[in-house]
């Protein structure tokens, strides 16, 4: 699985430009608040439209300004774990997790049942509860389960652990590493915590005022992206 992202987004106060390639590991985007990290995730997922650029997932274009490709959010097969989780408050945990389950089994993937995914994330006991009845760490696991249930080809996580206490946070960092190695899909994770970036990231990119700076390169060097024009 290879994801190539090269995009420019004109924001009111600055231009955001990023260019990176990611294989089956975790890319961490770090940087101060308002640097444009979430905008990058939203552009990749299709919730925002880049001004210019190209996003390729396994050589399949989901966005290309030159070829006029703009696959709608719902068809991109990109999982998104939102900051503060965005669990549906009116649905049980089970219904939340099942919301994005593909209707037809995709032949290339083994379809997971809700029981399996809840067990992998160690939350089978929460099945019949509502989001307001569970803790922050549990919500995080549910949000992860819900996103993975869609059988995504890429997972985006926006400050997934920022609202948690240090112990839960350390535990969930390990869980994320475990889930990523199990799923073998690229993760792009946003955080403002440099330590967390070190723990989780195979590669780290720092974004400040829309400008990217590669802080840590992946162990096996990837073919570098093109210059952003």
């Amino acid at each position, binding site marked *: 699985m290879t994801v190539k992202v090269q995009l420019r987004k004109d924001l009111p106060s600055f231009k955001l430009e990023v260019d990176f390639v990611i294989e089956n590991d975790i890319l961490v985007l770090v940087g101060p608040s308002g640097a444009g990290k979430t905008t990058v995730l939203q552009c990749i997922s299709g919730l925002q439209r880049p001004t210019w650029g190209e996003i390729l997932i396994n050589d399949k274009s989901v966005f290309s300004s030159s070829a006029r490709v703009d696959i709608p*959010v719902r068809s991109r097969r990109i999982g998104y774990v939102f900051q503060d989780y965005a669990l549906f408050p009116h649905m049980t945990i089970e219904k939340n997790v099942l919301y994005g389950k593909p209707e037809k089994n995709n032949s290339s993937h083994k379809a997971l049942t809700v029981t399996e995914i809840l067990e992998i994330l160690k939350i089978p006991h929460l099945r019949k509860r509502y989001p307001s009845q569970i803790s922050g760490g549990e919500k995080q696991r549910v949000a992860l389960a819900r996103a993975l249930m869609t059988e995504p080809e890429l997972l985006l996580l926006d400050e997934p652990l920022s609202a948690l206490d240090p112990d839960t946070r350390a535990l969930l960092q390990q869980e994320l590493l475990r889930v990523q190695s199990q799923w073998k899909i690229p993760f792009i994770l946003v955080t403002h915590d440099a330590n967390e970036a070190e723990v989780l990231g195979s590669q780290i990119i720092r974004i400040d005022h829309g400008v990217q700076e590669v802080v840590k390169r992946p162990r096996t060097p990837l073919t570098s992206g093109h210059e952003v024009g």
Partner: protein
Amino acid sequence: MGFDFSPIILSLKVAGAAVLVVVCFAIPIATLMAKHQFPGKNILESILTLPLVLPPSVVGFILLYIFGKNGPLGKFLLHTFDTQIVFTLTGATIASAVVAFPLMYQSVKAAIESIDVKLENAARTLGAGELRVFFTITIPLAWNGVIAGFVLAFARSLGEFGATLMIAGNIPGRTQTMPLAIYIASESGQTREAWILVSIMVLFSFLVIYGLNYWGKGSKNRSGGGAI
């Protein structure tokens, strides 16, 4: 002389039909207005809310002009379908619907605006199309606003007097709704009839307000507990 129940039945018919019309228009329009920005939005917003502040006689006068025999729509309906709106129950329904519309519209729009956009976006990233987002996320989360708007619109339709009198007249057994019957009974000294109808209206209005308050408190507790 026995008590005439027809005003009560007519009122319920008119209010029921009016609320159905209002639901069909107010929910889609409120959704569009809550979700989209376009030029002239403020002007449209003001027009949609206008019947709330206009005296009902003004609404009645305008409707009478539009649907009257020589009015633009009245002429068309008369010549094309041989139908007349003035002095009919349909006229009363239209008057009630126009007057009740802003209540439903405002209530639904406020409820939709208060929903965290992130939840709708989350549904989109989970593969949901716009219709699925609307029916499984937007409407369930705005449900309290929809119910409150529905009840207020029904109550307002039931109490409609001025606009109804102007467009539907006051024909006993045909267009004479409860508020009109109360006025006539009071004017003609039929105090007993007036009191019965007044009691029904007061009791009903009280139940509406009490029910809404109860619903509001209950749903707060429930959302704390997590269910709808």
